[in-house]
């Protein structure tokens, strides 16, 4: 009856079993390599940088002497720039998502805008730096300032906020809206009282992700013209500035080992901040899911 001879089948079976195991091993190995790289990266950074982290590292300005160099200016620069980027991206992103989901849903404009946003998310970050240089620094005369840097990063992370906000708004059950409309609420009242509060955890998750992305960006701010050596904290939105990733870049490029250790220390500070922010996003997302599933 069998179309495949028993010997062929059994011969094949042994080979297939063996290959199946080898393939399983190969897949495991791939994941293992990836996880090992992560572990090696983190351990190496800790070894290189931990000894340099202390109070004076956080409170000193950059210096020509590696052992005196600190990240005060870069830290303040990062905080200011990221706050501006976060606030701007939040406002624009939520407004855009509301318009595309609540006001113009399924319109031709919305479709075009969404394709456009997907493509903006794929534009290399350095191109945003050039855009920021030409628009904010040169055309709007903001100079190579904190404000220009914040705006540049806001544009860069805007797609992240829009996509997250859109998803959060879509997840709001239509029955809630219908209930409110049935009571005679206007569109904006529905959006303001119903949609935004319900979507807020999802939106905030997106904003945190966007801000973490902005916090780690180096290239666009260099292209925009941020400084690499700054012995002062920005005192106004129009001050010149540097940020932590640029400071790290600068130190990494120096031949002295002391600066490379400072770079590792700076990286540890940066990663700890990112970790805290992402933990916040995870907690928010968990809450968000419980709310709808629970």
């Amino acid at each position, binding site marked *: *009856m*069998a*179309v*495949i*001879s028993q010997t*062929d*089948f059994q*011969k*094949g*079976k042994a080979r*297939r*079993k063996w290959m199946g195991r080898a393939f399983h091993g190969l897949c495991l190995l791939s994941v293992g390599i990836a996880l090992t790289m992560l572990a090696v990266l983190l351990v190496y950074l800790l070894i290189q940088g931990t000894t340099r982290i202390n109070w004076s590292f956080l409170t000193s300005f950059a210096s020509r002497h590696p052992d005196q160099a600190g990240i005060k200016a870069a830290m303040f620069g990062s905080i200011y720039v990221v706050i501006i980027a976060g606030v701007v991206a939040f406002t624009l992103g939520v407004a855009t998502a509301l318009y595309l989901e609540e006001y113009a849903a399924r319109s031709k404009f919305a479709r075009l805008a969404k394709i456009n946003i997907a493509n903006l998310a794929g534009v290399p970050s350095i191109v945003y730096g050039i855009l920021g240089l030409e628009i904010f620094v040169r055309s709007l005369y903001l100079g190579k300032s904190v404000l220009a840097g914040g705006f540049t990063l806001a544009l860069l992370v805007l797609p992240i906020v829009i996509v997250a906000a859109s998803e959060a708004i879509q997840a709001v059950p239509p029955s809630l809206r219908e209930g409110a409309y049935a009571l005679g609420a206007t569109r904006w009242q529905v959006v303001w009282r119903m949609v935004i509060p319900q979507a807020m955890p999802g939106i905030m998750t997106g904003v945190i992700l966007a801000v973490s992305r902005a916090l780690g960006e180096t290239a666009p701010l260099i292209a925009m013209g941020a400084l690499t050596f700054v012995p002062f904290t920005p005192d106004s939105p129009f001050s010149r500035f540097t940020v932590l990733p640029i400071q790290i870049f600068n130190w990494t490029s120096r031949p002295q080992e002391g600066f490379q250790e400072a770079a590792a220390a700076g990286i540890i500070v940066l990663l700890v901040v990112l970790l805290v922010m992402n933990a916040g996003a995870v907690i928010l997302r968990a809450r968000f899911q419980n709310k709808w599933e629970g």
Partner: protein
Amino acid sequence: MQDLDPILQARDLSVYYDTKKVVTDVNLDVARNRITSIIGPSGSGKSTLLRCFNRMNDLIPSARVEGQVLFDGLDLYGHNVDPTEIRYLIGMVFQRPNPFPKSIYDNVAFGPRINGFKGDIDELVERSLRRAALWDEVKDRLKTSGLSLSGGQQQRLCIARALAVEPSVILMDEPCSALDPIATLAIEELMHELSEDYSIIIVTHNMQQAARVSHYTAFLMVEEARVGFMVEFGESRKIFTNPEDERTEAYITGRFG
């Protein structure tokens, strides 16, 4: 009943999902070169029972099987039994047609290829499609995607795919539930022809279908205390005209389920 020549025998077969028992102590003989149908209300463990016969339940991490299934005397759940070999010997057709996103030809050739077929594959594909009564409809477009066929054709393609490795048993899990009446009729006729060479087990919620196509019928039920236990088994003619158990009678006359 004693004269039945069994190819598969379930012995005190129980299935658990985690700690929940979904099939309870089933003893069932499946006749060689006959069609056996498994009927019962939804949730009575029909599909789960069927999936014991080719160890498909192994793929569900939480599922656990107790008892024995004897295949020509060999316990399918014994030590050193390779489930992939079982599935090569016992074919399966599913509720919804599930052709691979490949050409019609490659769908049919899939099983023979992986299992080490050395002969003329063109000839085998044609033979399998002919047996599934699909050849005339697709012979001019063997390279087109299996997904381009109609639902009924897709299901016959899946039958051809199962036939290509020439299994001795074919398990059918509500094979017509997603098809229209005409396609259903075609499949039923096909099953009738196939039963000359194959042993077929079909799970169906359609009692007319069970009465029409099968030689033997097993009736499974679900109660509060017990899930998936077998109430009655016998020749279909008898089950559908003169059942012994009053629960069977209640079910086939449509009083519940």
